[in-house]
């Protein structure tokens, strides 16, 4: 994993561990897998990752936050 990918996986893991300390997140993770990445966690991941990278996002950008790979691509385009 490259550094940005590692940071994003770490941020997502931090969010999901609030619900399950044993949750596993990888570069292949996506909404629904792990199951803790549900609609409620989605919003928190959306806000946490955006805030971490200083990105101004709108709800139109939410579709880019459905998997680690999509988030990595989105952050790469915006930073």
């Amino acid at each position, binding site marked *: 994993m490259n550094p940005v990918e590692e940071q994003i996986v770490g941020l997502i893991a931090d969010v999901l561990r609030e619900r399950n300390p044993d949750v596993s997140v990888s570069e292949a993770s996506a909404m*629904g897998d792990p199951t803790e990445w549900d*609609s*409620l966690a989605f*919003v*928190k991941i959306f806000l946490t990752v955006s805030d971490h990278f200083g990105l101004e996002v709108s*709800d139109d950008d*939410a*579709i880019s936050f*459905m998997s680690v790979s999509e988030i990595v691509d989105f952050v790469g385009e915006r930073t």
Partner: protein
Amino acid sequence: MLHLIASTGRTATSFIAACLDQVPGVAGCHEGHQRNDDGPDLLPMINLENFQAFRDPEAAVRIVGEKRNQDVIDQAKSASGCDVVVDAAYYNATIGAALLATNSDTRVLGIVRDCESFVRSATWLSGEDPMPVGWPAPTKPLTARERFIGMGRIRPTAGPELDLWSEWEAIQRNVWLWRETNSRLCDMRDEHPDRVSILNFDALRGRAAEFVKDVVVELEVLSTPDYDDILTGAVDGAQDRVNVRSGGYQIPASTDWSNNERDMLEHASAEIETRLKNEPS
């Protein structure tokens, strides 16, 4: 075979799905869940993709290719043991045209509720909305669930309505939502008059069994002419899926709306009513 029921929401779609699920050979789904929200997921979730499909027809084709392709349909049929899967959901208004274009055996049934009662039932102005189908007031604090659902809700993407959007309160936003959704249903019927039909939600009131029979007839999902016993039993068995808006309506009747809100209601209602009357031959 996958058929769709499409509407703005607040049109008894979970009840209708539960009724259809009791028809032999039919798996009735509400937003992808068989029978009701507690049933197994037969179809992949669509939420954020709803807005994408609304904004871009090519995205709608891609989403149908990913989430409603033949393998997905075959898996749903296999999991349910049924030859016919019917999914009732708000997002079918945005993906329906793409599915009709790719699946020649798909039928779509639109259900249209009158604009005022939809708007009044669409949202809560305060407190967490347990059924957030419409736009909340722009300044209302939202829970994560309300916000997530809102992220996939259609909104203007261009033109004067986009400019006005930030000025609109919940009533105007939901009148727009109603008009835009029902325009999509009319567009689909104009394009595919032999495979798309539209029922008036008012026809459900006081005649649930007959309405569900209308749904079955329009979708052509029951080959036997002996509908009545099956459907009466199905309606009785689905009574627990009747979603009464607990807590009542927080949006008042249109007599208490502003002039601008009433004007928008009248224009939207007249536009859709005209289109519904102009049934394709």
